């Protein structure tokens, strides 16, 4: 750490600068988190609230050791967990496949076209998320834009089932999270040194070999960064499945929301949140590891 070589004065300045944000996070992030952690191990009260009794079966309900007295293990939670993972992973893969080539194209544009493209990518942030999602409802629903167009053209006679499916949910996720994939990828692709690509070709590697041995490893920090930035919020998102997935596509976010707001089972909601959080932390840990190794840009070589 640089801190060791810094003078006391600099250290004082540093703590002054970092002080407010540390206090803010301690009060408004870590304390609620701690409360959640504790709640997740307490028994849910009969009419909401909690009983102050140690109760590991909140986790048991999800993982398979439910309280034998009045709950049973229901694999539906694991199914929702897996579905959420599947939707998040699919979203990551689709956004990656869309953004990776685009990042290369845009990085090779002239300066003003580059900036314009980046502006266009950031443009959706200017409109409200809900508005953007309901536009997709108008497009996808049974009497929506696509169905009515196709039917009036006589291509289909029955409206297609597009809305309230997992596909629609993934579409919405991709649509919302594409900028989060693009920006880290672009940062990584932009700083790629093209003489390295030339050097690889010069040493006998064809395009395919050059891509897998040079381009892909060197842009890996951007791929990992973008994937995490898309995966984590997709996993916990409950707005998209609510609007585009309807009642059929329940994700972790919806489940947690229901436990806190409808079922009034805070300990169970807290346990679900903690499991999601653990998964996210593990991923972040991997990301940070790859970032600290970024100094030698070697996340892909072992």
């Amino acid at each position, binding site marked *: 750490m640089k801190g060791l070589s810094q003078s006391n004065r600099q250290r004082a300045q540093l703590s002054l600068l970092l002080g407010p944000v540390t206090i803010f996070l301690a009060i408004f992030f870590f304390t609620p988190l701690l409360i959640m952690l504790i709640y997740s191990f307490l028994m849910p009260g009969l009419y909401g609230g909690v009983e102050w009794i140690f109760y590991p079966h909140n986790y048991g309900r999800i993982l398979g050791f439910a309280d034998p007295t009045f709950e049973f293990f229901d694999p539906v939670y694991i199914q929702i967990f897996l579905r959420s993972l599947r939707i998040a992973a699919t979203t990551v893969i689709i956004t990656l496949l869309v953004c990776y080539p685009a990042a290369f194209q845009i990085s090779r544009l002239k300066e003003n076209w580059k900036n314009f493209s980046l502006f266009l990518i950031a443009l959706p942030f200017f409109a409200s998320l809900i508005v953007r999602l309901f536009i997709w409802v108008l497009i996808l629903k049974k009497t929506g834009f696509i169905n009515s167009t196709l039917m009036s053209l006589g291509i289909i006679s029955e409206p297609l089932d597009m809305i309230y499916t997992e596909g629609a949910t993934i579409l919405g996720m991709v649509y919302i999270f594409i900028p989060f994939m693009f920006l880290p990828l672009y940062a990584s692709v932009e700083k790629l040194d093209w003489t*390295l690509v030339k050097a690889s*070709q*010069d040493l006998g590697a064809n395009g395919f070999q050059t891509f897998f041995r040079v381009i892909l490893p*060197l842009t890996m920090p951007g791929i990992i960064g973008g994937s995490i930035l898309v995966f984590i919020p997709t996993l916990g998102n409950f707005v998209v499945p609510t609007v585009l997935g309807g009642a059929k596509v329940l994700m972790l976010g919806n489940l947690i929301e229901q436990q806190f707001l409808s079922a009034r089972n805070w300990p169970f909601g807290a346990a679900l949140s903690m499991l999601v959080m653990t998964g996210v932390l593990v991923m972040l840990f991997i990301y940070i590891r790859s970032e600290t190794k970024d100094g030698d840009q070697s996340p892909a070589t072992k």
Partner: protein
Amino acid sequence: MHDKIISLDNATKRFSLPEGGKINALDAIDLEVSRNEFLTLLGPSGCGKTTLLHVISGFVQLDEGQILIDGVDMGETPPHNRPVNTVFQNYALFPHMSVGENVGYALEIAHTPKPERIKRVGEALELVGLGGYADRMPRQLSGGQQQRVALARAIIARPKLLLLDEPLSALDRNLRQSMQIELKNLQAELGISFIFVTHDQEEALTMSNRVAVLNGGVIQQIDTPLNTYNYPANSFVASFVGASNLFEGKASRDGERIHIATEHNEVIEARARKDQHINGGKVTAMLRPEQFSLADGDENRAEIDVTIDQIVFLGSAYELLGKTTGGSEIKAIISAARQSRLAEVERTKTARLSYDPNAVHLIPGTGDVQ
């Protein structure tokens, strides 16, 4: 086996300018490099030397003309299929690979079995004086060491021709000089032809068998370092390779002697070489700064009066900057051993310089050759 490892015939490359129009980056270049030759491409920025290198390595396609490597037409051959390797200007080492992986890259691509690969990587690193560095990462090495890794990486696949794109420009002066000698030795040891690109004329003169001076996409002269320095083909070469005093004027012959009368009314005296054909036309006379000395009445030497503007101490010598009585600028280098007389020059701000007429090189033409 072809005698020429590479031959370019009428190689032409045009680039479009952003403001419209086209520029000839390479203008009908004819160039041949022999087996085991060390050729230097010397020229200022934008003279086409890097384009020429890219044409050879395959990154740039010719608009016209032909390129043969070891007798094979390389017109459509992509870079990865050419028997040519390059040492890049900023080394271009793969930052995510160790030194050993960098050096072994070409072998790995060629599916060379691992034991042989390891052996050859070791040999190549040994050759550049970096034995035992295989497990380091490039960023842990100094500039000079990275340079050597780049060199080892480029020679491991035993190319027919090695291209070096200003590889020494990022090194400091002392390191650069020792690398020059090492490169020369390495070339002799490997028996690979080298094409070395530089804008540093000292490098070009030190290392090469031949120097090709490039300007405006045209080869101005291609000759041995000695001939390039002593007998430049035109005034561009004269002023780009080493410092020179150029006097443009009308030549007239007087027996053995040739007088060049400039428009500033100076007369430069030269001895005709047998092969030189003086027909009263315009010529440019070239004198290197070190050919001047302070006049001491030697009848075999011609003399010229100058006023001195500045005396610069260079260590082993002094550089005199001044003008002739006619107004042409003069640069002369006088050995520091003549210190007592230099003191007088410094006081009077005038000097009478002498030169050997035999040493005056005459460049035919008007000197407006680009």
